[in-house]
């Protein structure tokens, strides 16, 4: 950990890590020479860099001036050598109680070379914003990946992205009053004001017809409101309004819970990729406390992550079959999936929401006799899936609907920083399991697997990528069982260091899950930022929809495997959909008083 130059002189705050002796006063030059590209960046933005430090292994942070933020982000994103570098997300923090400034910090996953584990790294670009004028130049103008990120910090923290192309409300409900920012530290987590709803929808283009889809998506049965502007049958433009299941999870985690309690909340962010969130969060805290967890715990975590991936991919392929009207496939996929759920129930105690993790390891050991059972299930699933794919991929209903539909070109995928199988189906060779495998909470660096990549970019390619991954996962489970080391399953972590930051990540079945944790005092979490993969994939959906028919829309949307509750993480309240008039609170109260006792 290093602080350079005149950081203190600029901002009048002390590095708390230095006080605790954790911050080794390492030399800037040695840090810059650790990874390829860091020094080039330093040379290019020399006058604007106020400091640089290594947060933890493979995670580097630069403190830069806010004026050059877009240039700095684009410098990394469009780096000619690091082709697959992408803007992961950005964190906005209210650090006014600490140093009187807001912090806006985009971070990028820099892929120096695919699967070159010790070379790839994360870059955090920290900018301090003034407390009375939290504005910064918008990156979204040139990079669509930042569209949602900037709208989010505008909603939740009141930052002002200057020249943002689409500054509408994204996360907060329509009846949330202006000027109330839930993630600021001076707001209590129980406060929830309501005013008259104000709806901001995109203008309908000339000569088009509006086809509303939602607010509940058919098939996935989750809330998302797409407004398709169609000419005849063809989709011309799309407007998206989501975040109906925003639950304020980040705020709750920062407000009341200790670090071990947040873990269980993290697992409940998502119904089907819960364990990925749990591992990511645990990893962030472990990295920040500088603890290496026992090997056996890492293997058990990896095993469960892969079992989760297997049943999720089977679930998804079932839904895809259902979407194209091939319900036999749906039934069979879910029938094949069920033994995994039963197996996991026996290993962990629950079908979903395993509750297996604790910061520092896992809670239940995999007993030896269970290994046979796991191998039995793996064999059964491999045979079942092979038969299923034989049938499904020779069914015309399925192929004709999926082939050549919803094409996402490589360039668009890169510009939107699309992740996971959606990106790999468009030719992006990225996978955090391979890219950033050293010193994680998992054992991916010690086992062998391939990362399937397809170039077609249509729905069929997304099906095939996922099915290939499923077979890789089965192979990984077998290896993990084979190589599982003995020993402890957890190390206790006592007190956490104060005001340290670290990032935890895993490759969920939809893409990389990122948990950023900054600790506060007394073992609490000061800032906890969750970014689920759908958050990056969903903004690209309108691009996929354009030019295709309305009938394909549900399938195309489902093809990224969207998970709305993951993405939205946050709070109650239904809104005016534009179709039906929703009662105001006053009207509702009036009616309920009038008809009291009648219904």
């Amino acid at each position, binding site marked *: 950990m290093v602080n350079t130059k005149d950081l203190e002189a600029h901002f009048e705050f002390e590095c708390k890590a230095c006080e605790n002796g954790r911050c080794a006063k390492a030399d800037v030059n040695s840090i810059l020479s650790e990874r390829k590209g860091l020094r080039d960046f330093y040379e290019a933005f020399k006058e604007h860099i106020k400091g640089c430090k290594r947060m933890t292994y493979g995670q580097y942070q630069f403190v830069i001036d806010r004026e050059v933020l877009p240039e700095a982000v684009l410098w990394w994103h469009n780096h000619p050598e690091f082709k697959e570098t992408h803007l992961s997300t950005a964190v906005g923090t209210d650090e006014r109680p600490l140093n009187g400034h807001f912090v806006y910090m985009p971070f990028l996953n820099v892929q120096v070379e695919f699967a070159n584990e010790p070379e790839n790294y994360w870059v955090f670009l920290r900018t301090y914003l003034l407390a009375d004028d939290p504005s910064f130049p918008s990156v979204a103008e040139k990079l669509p990946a930042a569209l949602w990120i900037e709208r989010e910090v505008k909603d939740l923290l009141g930052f002002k992205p200057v020249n943002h192309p689409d500054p509408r409300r994204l996360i907060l409900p329509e009846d949330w009053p202006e000027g109330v920012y839930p993630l600021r530290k001076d707001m209590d987590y129980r406060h929830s004001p309501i005013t008259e709803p104000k709806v901001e929808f995109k203008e309908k283009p000339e000569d088009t017809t509006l086809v509303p889809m939602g607010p509940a998506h058919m098939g996935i049965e989750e809330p998302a409101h797409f407004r398709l502007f169609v000419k005849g049958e063809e989709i011309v433009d799309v407007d998206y309004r989501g975040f109906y299941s925003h639950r304020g999870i980040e705020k709750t985690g920062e407000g009341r819970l200790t670090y071990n309690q947040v873990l269980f909340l993290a697992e409940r962010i998502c119904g089907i990729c819960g364990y990925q969130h749990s591992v990511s969060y645990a990893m962030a805290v472990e990295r920040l406390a500088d603890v290496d967890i026992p090997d056996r715990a890492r293997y058990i975590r990896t095993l469960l992550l892969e079992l989760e991936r297997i049943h999720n991919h089977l679930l998804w392929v079932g839904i895809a079959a259902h979407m194209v009207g091939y319900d036999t496939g749906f039934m069979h996929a879910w029938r094949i999936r069920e033994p995994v759920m039963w197996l996991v129930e*026996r290993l962990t105690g*629950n079908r979903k929401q395993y509750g297996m993790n604790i910061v520092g390891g896992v809670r239940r050991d995999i007993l030896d006799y269970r290994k046979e059972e796991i191998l039995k299930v793996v064999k059964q699933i491999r045979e079942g899936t092979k038969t299923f794919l034989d049938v499904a991929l020779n069914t015309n209903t399925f192929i004709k609907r999926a082939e050549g539909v919803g094409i996402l070109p490589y360039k668009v995928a890169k510009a939107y920083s699309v992740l996971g199988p959606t990106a790999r189906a468009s030719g992006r060779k990225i996978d955090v399991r391979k890219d950033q495998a050293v010193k994680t909470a998992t054992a991916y660096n010690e086992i062998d697997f391939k990362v399937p990549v397809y170039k077609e970019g249509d729905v069929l390619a997304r099906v095939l990528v996922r099915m290939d991954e499923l077979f890789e996962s089965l192979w990984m489970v077998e290896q993990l069982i084979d190589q599982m080391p003995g020993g402890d399953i957890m190390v206790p972590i006592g007190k956490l260091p104060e005001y340290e930051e670290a990032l935890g990540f895993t490759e969920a079945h939809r893409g990389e899950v990122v948990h950023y944790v900054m600790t506060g005092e007394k073992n609490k979490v000061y800032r906890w930022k969750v970014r689920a993969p759908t958050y990056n994939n969903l903004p690209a959906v309108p691009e996929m929809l354009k030019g295709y028919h309305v009938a394909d829309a549900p399938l195309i949307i489902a093809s990224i495997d969207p998970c709305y509750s993951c993405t939205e993480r946050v709070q109650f309240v239904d809104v005016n959909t534009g179709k039906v008039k929703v009662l105001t609170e006053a009207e509702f109260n009036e009616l309920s008083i009038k008809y009291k006792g009648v219904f």
Partner: protein
Amino acid sequence: MAESASYTEKLKRWDRFKAEKFSKKAPVTTPYPFIDIEKPPEYRGIPHINPEKCIGCGACVNACPPDALIMEWDKEHGVKRLTYNAARCIRCARCIEVCPTGAMEPTTRFEVATDNKEDLVEVVEHKLAYCEECGEYLDFTERQIEYVRNILPKDVFDAYALEDRIKLTQEEKMRRTVIKLRETEGNVYPAFMLVRETKDDGGEE
């Protein structure tokens, strides 16, 4: 202890398909809720407080992520109340892990649907211990003190003179220490210094 070995054997042999109910009926669909559904023995259901073992220490309350367990002090009536609400419970079983006496017992029950919310609540009330000197209620329950008596080695008891002091309020303990120090040291220190010192001493227990 022979029981536990047979339990492991039972775990090994448990198989969803071989379970008796499924061999007699169709393999997938069952007339649930009219039969008792087969659950694996490892299943984490809602926990249950065994009032006979509970000492009211509140370890479970500190660990519980969703506040399903709540601790209240009623010093007027000398009662410490531990409330468990299954409606808030997320079945993470952290309370079972941290319980020092094994009073939190795991079950495989998962059906908590009810038309009366009070069915979901378990309340355990503990008698608070009271001060031998002034008669005020302490923060601890009688069982907690009993438990401490049982587990602490005798050296520790002697070193801190706990036998005399364990059932006293904080103020009473401080007062006694002051008196004792005055006696032994001939009151060479001003009183406020003594009070501060004894405060630290009391906190260690």
